[in-house]
C-alpha cells in the first residue's frame, strides 16, 4: 500500500478498489472496535476549521485502537510564529505514525511528507484536493450501483473553489465513470477543459440522464468577490429544487459533501428526499477512513516515494 495519500491520483483503480472492498467490511461492522492499530499514534493536524473530516478521522482511528492527538493551529505555538515545518517536526518527535493534514494552502501536505517520516494523509489542502472525500463518495456510489463503468455523474456548483470537485472528478474517471462538470461560467476553474470531464453551464438538460447529481457547497466566505450576481439567482439557475429533482431518474442519487447551504445549492426538502444519500456519506466516511488507516498503517512501512510538490 502507498505510504502517503496526498492526491486521489496516488491510487490507481486497483488501489481504490482495495480501499472500497475493505470499507465495506467496516461499514458492515460500524461501531465495533478493533485492536488493529493499538501501537500506532495518529495526529489530526488541522490548520483550518473542520467538523466532519476531523471527527470522522478521529473516530476511525479510535475504532482501530490507535492513540489520537488533535492539533489545531489556533491556540498553538503557530500563533507565536512557529513555522509549519517546525510544528510538524515537533509533533513527529512525539512518535507519531500518521499525520492527517488539513491546510488552507494547496501543497502543504506534500511539503509535510518531505519533512517527516510518518505517513501523511491529505484531509483537504486549499483549493487543491480532498482525496478521502473522493473515496467516501466513490464508496457511497458503489453501494447503489454495481459498477462505475459508464455511470453518469454531474458535479454541480462552485467548482473553482472546490477541492472536493477536483478529487471526485479524478477518482470517478479512474473508475470509469462519465463525469460532467456543471457551473456558472465564473465558477469554472481555468483549464477545466484539461480535466477530461464534460463541461457545461446548463443544469436542466443534464438531469434526466444522471445516475448521480453531486452538489457542491457554495463557499459563501469566498463569494464576496462577486462570482455570481446573488445567491438567490444562483439558487434559481443552478440550485437543486423540487422541480429539478423531479427531472432526475428514479435511480439517481443526490449527493453533497456538506455542510449544506439549504435554499442555495439544494432546497431544504430535497436534502431529505429518499434518494438523497448525504447523511450516508458522513457514515460511510468513517468506514472508508478506517479502511485507509488499516491498509496504510497495518503493513510494513511502505517505501517512501517523495511526491512532487504541486
Amino acid at each position, binding site marked *: *500500500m502507498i505510504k502517503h495519500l496526498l492526491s486521489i491520483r496516488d491510487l490507481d483503480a486497483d488501489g481504490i478498489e*482495495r480501499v472500497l*472492498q*475493505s470499507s*465495506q*467490511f*467496516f461499514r*458492515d*461492522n460500524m461501531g*465495533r*472496535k*478493533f*485492536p*488493529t*492499530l493499538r*501501537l500506532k499514534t495518529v495526529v489530526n493536524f488541522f490548520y483550518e476549521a473542520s467538523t466532519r473530516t476531523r471527527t470522522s478521522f478521529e473516530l476511525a482511528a479510535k475504532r*482501530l485502537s490507535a492513540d489520537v492527538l488533535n492539533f489545531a493551529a489556533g491556540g498553538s505555538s503557530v500563533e507565536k510564529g512557529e513555522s509549519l515545518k517546525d510544528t510538524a517536526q515537533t509533533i513527529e518527535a512525539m512518535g507519531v505514525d500518521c499525520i492527517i493534514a488539513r491546510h488552507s494552502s494547496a501543497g502543504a501536505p506534500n511539503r509535510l511528507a518531505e519533512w517527516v517520516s510518518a505517513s501523511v494523509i491529505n484531509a483537504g489542502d486549499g483549493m487543491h484536493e480532498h482525496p478521502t472525500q473522493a473515496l467516501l463518495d466513490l464508496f457511497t456510489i458503489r453501494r447503489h450501483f454495481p459498477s462505475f463503468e459508464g455511470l453518469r455523474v454531474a458535479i454541480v456548483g462552485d467548482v473553482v473553489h472546490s477541492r472536493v470537485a477536483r478529487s471526485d472528478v479524478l477518482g470517478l474517471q479512474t473508475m470509469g465513470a462519465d463525469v460532467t462538470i456543471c457551473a456558472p461560467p465564473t465558477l469554472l476553474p481555468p483549464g477545466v477543459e484539461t480535466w477530461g470531464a464534460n463541461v457545461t453551464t446548463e443544469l436542466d438538460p443534464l438531469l434526466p440522464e444522471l445516475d448521480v447529481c453531486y452538489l457542491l457547497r457554495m463557499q459563501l466566505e469566498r463569494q464576496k468577490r462577486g462570482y455570481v450576481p446573488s445567491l438567490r439567482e444562483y439558487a434559481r439557475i443552478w440550485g437543486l429544487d423540487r422541480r429539478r429533482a423531479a427531472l432526475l431518474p428514479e435511480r439517481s442519487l443526490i449527493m453533497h459533501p456538506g455542510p449544506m447551504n439549504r435554499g442555495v445549492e439544494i432546497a431544504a426538502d430535497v436534502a431529505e428526499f429518499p434518494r438523497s444519500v448525504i447523511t450516508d456519506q458522513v457514515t460511510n466516511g468513517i468506514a472508508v477512513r478506517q*479502511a485507509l488507516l*488499516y*491498509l496504510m*498503517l*497495518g*503493513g*510494513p512501512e511502505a517505501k517512501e516515494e517523495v511526491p512532487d510538490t504541486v
Partner: protein
Amino acid sequence: MTKTFTPKATVMDSSDVARALARIAHEIIERNKGASRVALVGILTRGVSLAQRLATLIAEIEGVEVPTGSLDIGLYRDDIGMREPAPLAPVKVPDIDGKIVVLVDDVLYTGRSIRAAMDALIDLGRPQAVQLAVLVDRGHRELPIRADYVGKNIPTAHNEEVQVRMSEVDGEDAVDLGEVIG
C-alpha cells in the same frame, strides 16, 4: 516478492478429505450430545468451506440445521505491521451467545490465527464454549492451543508448507505437502 509453492506429495485426496470431515461431524455430535447448541464458524477462506461441509454432514446425520458463519481475522492478527494487510472480506457470524462455537480452519500451525480468531469471536458475543476443528494439524505450535477435532496429523518441517485445496475455492479437494520458495 511472490512466493511459489512446489508440491512434493499429495497427503490427502478427495476421499480422504470426505472421510475426515464425516468423522469430525460425528465427533462434534457425540462430544456435544447432539448439535442443537452448536454453531460453526469458519476462518476465511477455506475454513468457511469446511464449516459449510460440516454443517451439511451434521444436518444429514442429526437432522439439525447448524448455524454457520465466517470470520475474517485480519484485524486481530499479532503480525500487523509485519506484512501487507489483506483486504477485508464481508463476514457473517450467527448469534453465538450461549452457543458451543466450533471454529473451523484448514491448517493448524503456530496457533496464532486461532488466537486471533478467538479474540474476534469474543468481541461478537459470549459463547458457552469454543472448540476447534481443523482439517490438518501440522505441528510447531507457538501458543498453548490444541484442536478438539483433527482430520489428519501431518508432521512437517518448518520449511515445508501444507496447502489445502477445497473444491468451492480451488476446483478440487486435496491436501498437498510441499516447499515454498521465495
